[in-house]
């Protein structure tokens, strides 16, 4: 298919035509013959969004999400690339496991699926997984994470960071001190945890691990990526580390930019997530850090769950919430529309930076002749009330249900194919 997208606005503000043929952008002057014309006047073209943090649940929990359904939801949200987290069943801790995810993604995906490898065997935090074999596999894994669990052992973390420097890998850490925030911890420690009687998770359970890890990154010279930064203290540590020249990057989730701890008042387990929703002081710190670049990227931590895993008491229900479909909307609502970032910065945080961090060469590229045709067309003024039942995900644990938000995504194109259009 060939497409001529006319009169579209780029993030720079410039208006142009984009011609897509054979998966790439071509010179619009060459557009002739059987070309599908898309009138994009009033729309903005962003590079296809890249998510560093997606739980696709396949293999193991295909009732909650599959690679096919999760990437459909991704496309609906404007994403052309997702990093599939390793906490599947079985865990993606071998070359065969990451190659399987890669192959299913190529066969069935509506977006590019980059398999994330586990740091430790079985996510158990005891022994290193086969990091090198995963790196040399067809999946060419560079991004490793035990996400869902913290690599808590300082020595194992040091070894992991050190080992992956051989092939310029990155360790993406779920920062949760398992003693300060143990198995039952489920509410940001604050007046809310005290009042609701929910086991508290102090902000420092995150930041003490971040503080340790940036120093281990300095010691080893390795690249560290901090997943789902949610507290002011973590932001300060990362700011300090970057100033010092430590190779650290960080991500923030849409829900930590938008939803505060008061949402858990009714014990609705949709709002149970790790790390927990925090107070406005922390939300403000995360927004500021995303604006100034201390936090490099937005990542969804899209975590589909079915009712049988959520219809439990708050401290027992599984943590996690959906994010792919409303991520761009939330970033617009919290960052762009209030004037805290520009479209250019938004493209940096949601496409260019995550593609660099994940080392995905053909994603996060300029919308320019010769580049792969990954883009999302955005209506900057459309708004809608989110309906969880309208989701393309297999799960319904959508924390934005019933909220009025931007509804920006008009069309998503991955490698020259339309993967979502409305």
């Amino acid at each position, binding site marked *: 298919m060939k497409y001529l997208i006319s009169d579209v606005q780029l993030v720079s503000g410039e208006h142009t035509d984009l011609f897509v043929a054979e998966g790439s952008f071509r010179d619009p002057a060459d557009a002739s013959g059987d070309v599908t014309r898309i009138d994009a006047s009033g729309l903005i073209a962003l590079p296809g969004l890249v998510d560093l943090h997606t739980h696709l649940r396949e293999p193991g929990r295909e009732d909650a999400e599959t690679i096919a359904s999760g990437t459909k939801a991704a496309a609906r949200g404007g994403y052309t690339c997702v990093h599939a987290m390793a906490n599947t069943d079985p865990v993606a801790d071998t070359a065969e496991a990451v190659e399987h995810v890669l192959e299913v993604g190529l066969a069935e995906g509506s977006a590019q699926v980059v398999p994330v490898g586990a740091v430790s065997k079985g996510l158990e935090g005891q022994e290193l997984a086969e990091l090198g074999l995963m790196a040399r596999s067809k999946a060419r894994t560079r991004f490793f994470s035990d996400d869902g669990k913290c690599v808590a052992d300082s020595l194992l973390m040091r070894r992991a960071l050190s080992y992956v420097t051989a092939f310029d890998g990155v360790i993406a850490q779920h920062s949760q001190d398992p003693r300060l925030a143990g198995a039952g911890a489920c509410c940001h420690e604050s*007046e809310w*945890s005290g009042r609701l*009687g929910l086991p508290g998770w102090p902000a420092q359970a995150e930041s003490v691990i971040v503080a340790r890890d940036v120093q281990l990154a300095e010691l080893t010279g390795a690249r560290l990526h901090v997943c789902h930064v949610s507290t002011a203290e973590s932001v300060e540590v990362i700011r300090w580390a970057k100033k010092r020249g430590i190779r650290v990057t960080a991500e923030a989730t849409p829900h930590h930019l938008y939803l505060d701890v008061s949402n858990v008042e009714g*014990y609705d387990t949709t709002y149970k997530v790790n790390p927990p929703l925090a107070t406005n002081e922390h939300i403000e710190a995360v927004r500021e850090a995303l604006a100034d670049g201390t936090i490099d990227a937005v990542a969804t931590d899209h975590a589909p769950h079915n009712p*049988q895993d959520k219809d*439990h*008491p708050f401290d027992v229900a599984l943590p996690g919430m959906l994010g792919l479909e409303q991520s761009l909307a939330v970033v617009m609502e919290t960052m762009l529309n209030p004037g805290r970032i520009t479209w250019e910065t938004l493209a940096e945080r949601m496409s260019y930076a995550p593609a660099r961090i994940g080392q995905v060469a053909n994603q996060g590229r300029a919308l320019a002749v010769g580049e792969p045709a990954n883009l999302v067309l955005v209506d900057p003024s459309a708004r809608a009330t989110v309906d969880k039942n309208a989701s393309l995900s297999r799960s319904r644990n959508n924390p934005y249900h019933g909220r009025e938000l931007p509804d920006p995504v008009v069309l998503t194109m991955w490698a020259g194919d339309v993967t979502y259009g409305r």
Partner: protein
Amino acid sequence: MRHLLGTKDLSKEEALAILDLAEDMAQVQHRQVKKLPALRGRTIVNAFFEDSTRTRTSFEIAGKWLSADTINVSAKGSSVSKGESLRDTMLTLDAMGVDAFVIRHPSSGAAKQVSGWVGAHVINAGDGQHEHPTQALLDAFSMRHHFAKIGNPGFEGKRVAIVGDLLHSRVVRSNVYLLSKLGAEVVLVAPPTLMPAGVENWPVTTAYDFDSVISELDVAMMLRVQRERMAGGFFPTPREYSDAYGLTLERLRRLKEGAAICHPGPMNRGVEISSAASDSAASLVFDQVASGVAVRMSVLYTLLGGEEGIRE
């Protein structure tokens, strides 16, 4: 009133109405035939997801004395990994046409969640570390009797200390909300490790030093220190805890004339309360248990007794 989930959302008037009705219910306890026909034909299920002898028995007796059919369901161990969800368990029971659930659950918020799922009335008989409203109501009932007995009625200006494991106690929240609504001043006493987060915003004062407040108290409410907390590093040893926060013989002697001692039970004698204190004339411990039945009868009647008592 549709549900009783906590004392936080109970108005002072509603609380006083329950306490006043409990006075009438208490009369039944002294009759030879302890039976009122008030809730004949109504079905109350005590759904206990956690062991509790005294609360379950108290609710069961309260229901029976009101002529309701009371059924105990012990449903321990329902979890994510095995068996059905809490929602499915409760919807299954609800579908049998139950009029009210009395719920005890180890997780905070469980009663609130259930109230959103079922058509029956829900009474919270203790949810995790959150609330235990009937315990607070029976404590207030016992205190009110005591204040009247010593010729100094009413809660206004009374000083009540709640001492012990405040962090993990569901009794403390319910008592703080209720007692402060009734006009009492509440002081929370515990080591810093057992103070709840955000307690500075509660309608209370706090103290780490029990001795600094003991001589001013009208009521000393001693909370149980659970065995697992002793191993959890919240304080070094039971001996040290008792030395700082126990109602010892020495502290008993420093209580002012007419002061009362409460304990929601079960007691760890020798840890948070000495036998000298629990068995003293100042102790309301067994009055509290007796009050429990009357207060729970009052609550059941308040929810189920009138026209509003018909299930949705």
